[in-house]
C-alpha cells in the first residue's frame, strides 16, 4: 500500500496532513515496544526510515551495486549514475548553486572536522579566534578545539538567555578582526531553539568572516536554502532526516572548496599520482577519497524524494501542533520544568522533574513503550549554563501524533507514582 503512494508523489502533496497514512510508510511502527504501541520520541537522536528509503538501499545492493567512476561496464555506469543523481537531489534540496558544492561525508561530525582541518586550520594564526555558541553540540566544539590547540588560536563563545536564545548583541561584540570563522548551530538539539542564522551570517559577512552552520537538527523540520542563508558551509546528516546512517553532507561554496586542500588522501580524489607530485581532482571528488557509502547516498536521495511528497507547510503545522500540545501538557505536570523555551523552536521538549533524575524518568517511560533521550545530549556547556545535570528530551517528528504526546504525559504520571513525588 505504501508503494502506491510513492508511485504518485504529486497526489500526496495536499494541505491536509494524514498522519496515519504517513505512519504506514514507516515499517518500524508495526512493532510493539514492551508490549505497547511504540512511542518514538527520540527523533533528534535519529529518525525512523520510511520503506521508500529502506527499499532504495536494498535495491542498490540487489540491482545496481558496482564501484563508481571506474568500470567500463554498464553496471558501474548505473551505480555512478545513481550516486550522481543523489548529489543532484541534495543540491536541489538545499538549493546549492551547483552539484559540485555538495560533498558526501559520513555525517555532520565529519563535515565539521573537514572544514576545521582543511579550511580553518591553514588560515588560523596564533591569537586568532573561532566563534561558537554556548548551545553547540560537542561535534561543533571539539573539532575547533583541536585546530585551536594546533594553531595557538582560541574559542570565543556566544552566550544565551535562560530561555535558550542567543544574545545577538554579545555576538556582535565578539566579532573582530581576529575572528577567523564563525561556527554555529542552526537548531539546537537539546533546546530546539531556531537561531537567527541568516542574520548571524550577515553580521559576520559584513566583517568578512566566513560562517559554517551545523544544520543537523534543521533539515528534518524545515526547508533549508543555503543561498538564502548565505552561509559558507552547511553540514547535516542523512540519518536525522529519514535517510541511512553513515552518510551526510557538507555544502561548501565552490570558491572555498576549490581553494581548500584535501581532507583525506586516497583513490578517486586524484587526477594523477606520481611519487614526486600528485594532482588532485576538482571538488567534490577532491574530498571523497576512497570508495564512498554509495548505497547510503542513494538512500539519502530516496529520503529527499520522500520528503518532497510531503507539503512542508502542512508538516510544519503538524509539528507546531505537537510542540504546542506537549509544551502545554508538560507544563501542567506537577514538578516538571521545561528547559528551552525560545520563541522560535522546533518540536523538541527538554525537561527536568523535581525529585526524579532524568535517567530514572527515561527508564520508567521505556517500560511504557516510550523512547526519550536522557542525559546531557552531547551539549555539556548547555547543562552547565542552565545548572542542570541532565534533562529528559522528547523530540517529535512529523509521524508523531497527539496520542504520542498524551502517552508521554501519562508516562510522567507513572513516574510520579513510582517515585511517590
Amino acid at each position, binding site marked *: 500500500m505504501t508503494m502506491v503512494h510513492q508511485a504518485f508523489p504529486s497526489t500526496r502533496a495536499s494541505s491536509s496532513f494524514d498522519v496515519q497514512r504517513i505512519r504506514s510508510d514507516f515499517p518500524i511502527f508495526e512493532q510493539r515496544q514492551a508490549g505497547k504501541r511504540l512511542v518514538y520520541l527520540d527523533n533528534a537522536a535519529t529518525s525512523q526510515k520510511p520503506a521508500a528509503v529502506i527499499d532504495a538501499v536494498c535495491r542498490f545492493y540487489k540491482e545496481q551495486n558496482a564501484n563508481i567512476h571506474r568500470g567500463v561496464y554498464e553496471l558501474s555506469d548505473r551505480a555512478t549514475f545513481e550516486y550522481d543523481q543523489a548529489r543532484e537531489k541534495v543540491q536541489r534540496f538545499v538549493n546549492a548553486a551547483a552539484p559540485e558544492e555538495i560533498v558526501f561525508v559520513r555525517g555532520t561530525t565529519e563535515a565539521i572536522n573537514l572544514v576545521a582541518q582543511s579550511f580553518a586550520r591553514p588560515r588560523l594564526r596564533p591569537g586568532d579566534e573561532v566563534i561558537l555558541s554556548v548551545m553547540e553540540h560537542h561535534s561543533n566544539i571539539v573539532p575547533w578545539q583541536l585546530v585551536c590547540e594546533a594553531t595557538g588560536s582560541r574559542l570565543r563563545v556566544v552566550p544565551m538567555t535562560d530561555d535558550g536564545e542567543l544574545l545577538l548583541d554579545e555576538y556582535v561584540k565578539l566579532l573582530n578582526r581576529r575572528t577567523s570563522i564563525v561556527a554555529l548551530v542552526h537548531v539546537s538539539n537539546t533546546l530546539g531553539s531556531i537561531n537567527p542564522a541568516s542574520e548571524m551570517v550577515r553580521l559576520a559577512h559584513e566583517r568578512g568572516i566566513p560562517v559554517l552552520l551545523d544544520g543537523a537538527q534543521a533539515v528534518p523540520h524545515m526547508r533549508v536554502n543555503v543561498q538564502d542563508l548565505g552561509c559558507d558551509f552547511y553540514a547535516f546528516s542523512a540519518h536525522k532526516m529519514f535517510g541511512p546512517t553513515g552518510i551526510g553532507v557538507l555544502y561548501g561554496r565552490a570558491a572555498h572548496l576549490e581553494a581548500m586542500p584535501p581532507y583525506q588522501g586516497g583513490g578517486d580524489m586524484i587526477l594523477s599520482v606520481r611519487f614526486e607530485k600528485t594532482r588532485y581532482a576538482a571538488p567534490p571528488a577532491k574530498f571523497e577519497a576512497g570508495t564512498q557509502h554509495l548505497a547510503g547516498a542513494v538512500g539519502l536521495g530516496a529520503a529527499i524524494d520522500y520528503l518532497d511528497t510531503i507539503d512542508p507547510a502542512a508538516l510544519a503545522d503538524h509539528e507546531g501542533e505537537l510542540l504546542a500540545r506537549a509544551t502545554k501538557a508538560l507544563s501542567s505536570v506537577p514538578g516538571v520544568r521545561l528547559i528551552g523555551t525560545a520563541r522560535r523552536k522546533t518540536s523538541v521538549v527538554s525537561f527536568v522533574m523535581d*525529585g*526524579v*533524575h*532524568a*535517567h*530514572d524518568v527515561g*527508564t*520508567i517511560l521505556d*517500560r511504557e513503550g516510550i523512547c526519550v533521550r*536522557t*542525559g*546531557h545530549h552531547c551539549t*555539556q556547556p548547555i*547543562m552547565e549554563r542552565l545548572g542542570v*545535570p*541532565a534533562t529528559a528530551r522528547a523530540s517529535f517528528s512529523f509521524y508523531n501524533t497527539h496520542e504520542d504526546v498524551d502517552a508521554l504525559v501519562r508516562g510522567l504520571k507513572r513516574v510520579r507514582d*513510582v*517515585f*511517590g513525588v
Partner: protein
Amino acid sequence: MTDLRDLYQQIILDHNRSPRNFRKLDDANRQAEGNNPLCGDVLTVFVRVEDGAIADIAFQGSGCAISQASASLMTEAVKGKTCEEAEHLFRAFRAMVTARDDNAEERKALGKLAALGGVRQFPARVKCANLPWHTLHAALEQWSEPVSTERTGV
C-alpha cells in the same frame, strides 16, 4: 509493572531521597571521583582508612536514583569493614547486578545491598549501580585518574 517495582524498591527510593553519609569527609586519606559521561552522573567517594580498615566513608555528587542509592547503601555496608572485605563485597555486588538470574544465597550474603539486584533486568542501568563501587575501588587503590564508566567497563 512488577519489574519497575523490583528496580525502584522502597529502600532504594528512600536512600535516594535521603542518602546516608552524604557529606565531605574532612579527614579522609583516600578519595576518588567517578563519572558516567553518558548520563552526567558524578560522585566523589571519601574514605578514612585506618589499620587496613574503613574507619569512615562518605560521598557527594549527583545522579540518578540508582547511583545515589547504590552509593548510600555502599557507605553503610563497608563502614568498619577491612579494605579486603570491602573489595570482596564489591566483587559479590558486581556479580549480582550482572548475573543472568537471581541467586537467593548471594542475595542473603549481600544483605541490604541485595535491593539493587533488580538492576539486572535493566542492562542500561547496571553502570549506574556499579559506579560508586568502582569509585570506592579507585579510592582504595589510590588511582590518580578519575573513574569513568566509559573507560573502565564499570
